[in-house]
């Protein structure tokens, strides 16, 4: 990335080298980043910066979900539910990285987001409700339950996913 604007990094999920001129990203850990800056009238603005690797990760993830079906690992219903959960999560938390996924033969498929401080998981079976789990390692708080992907993501999942992006945010209560 090249540029001459003075960036004010907000809500960084990791450590980035930021300054004027050439911007280096030593460890790409997010699908995309929200940068905050001030325009000519000194008004605060946000800009969403997407990295090429971001789209690669998303494409890889979608390919993985499709491949698990074509290889007969999981039924199409599981892949469709996983895709729905991922898209809902991505919509609710725009900069969310793709989850680590693992698929058992015949199901379930299991999603994990983890930044070392917070952990969010979703277990996606072929039949029945999905299960969610959110954990804050620092405070020791944790919660979990069932959900139906077609009904949207539980509030606790969305709250947990937001904290995945910002480990310095408040702990779960």
């Amino acid at each position, binding site marked *: 990335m090249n540029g001459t604007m003075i960036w004010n990094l907000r809500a960084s999920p990791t450590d980035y080298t930021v300054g004027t001129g050439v911007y280096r990203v030593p460890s790409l850990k997010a699908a995309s980043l929200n940068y905050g800056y001030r325009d000519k009238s000194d008004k605060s603005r946000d800009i969403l910066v997407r990295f090429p690797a971001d789209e690669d990760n998303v494409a890889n993830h979608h390919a993985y979900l499709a491949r698990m079906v074509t290889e007969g690992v999981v039924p199409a219903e599981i892949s469709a539910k996983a895709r729905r959960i991922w898209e809902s999560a991505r919509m609710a938390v725009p900069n969310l990285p793709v989850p680590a*996924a693992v698929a*058992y*033969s015949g199901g379930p498929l299991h999603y994990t987001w983890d930044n070392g401080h917070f952990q969010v998981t979703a277990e996606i079976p072929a039949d029945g409700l999905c299960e969610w789990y959110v954990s804050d390692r620092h405070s020791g708080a944790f919660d979990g339950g069932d959900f139906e992907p077609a009904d949207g993501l539980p509030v606790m999942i969305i709250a947990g996913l937001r904290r995945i992006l910002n480990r310095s945010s408040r702990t779960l209560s």
Partner: protein
Amino acid sequence: MTSDGTSDALISEPDGTPLPAGWSVLRLGPQPSINAVNDPGHTLLASGKAWPGLFAFSSTERIAEVQGLKPRLSVWAESLTTLHQAWLLVGGNPNNRIALTLFVDLVRAISAPDMPGVRATPRLDVVWERAVRPAPDGTGSVPDDRPGSQGHCGIDGLCNGTKAQKGKLRELLAESVPPNGLVVLTDDQIVAFLSKPSD
């Protein structure tokens, strides 16, 4: 082998009998997404640490849980079952790409804390469990006597507690996997497993 390096032989015992202290067991897990291994964003996975999804019940075990049977999570005593044998015993499925080592003593230290109105769960246990395989006629299961089957065990207690506590148990189980305790099987290993009979 035992975690303290002793070499007394381990002998399989009747179903439900706890394993002696000091031994390690092997857990096979399925193929992770490409992202799980290669994406540096997944810091835990990139550093070779396990994650809770590797301790999910299979579809068969989930059905048993729904029926109130409290299934155990399948593992193998490493001194009685080699990785090759375990891989073949669970079906010789190329989708099984993760091998995890767990120490019995660490597993036995795990319980999910209490929550408002809910007690802490009992500690997990590792017990002997007779290996079975689907019956040839497709009805039920029959004892599995293939090489290495005598090492089959189960992690008991993962069905206890609330949904949140069950999630906690799996999180703690993943954290109990020692450094270098997670191995991703390569394509070459899978080919070798498929081409050679069990040792």
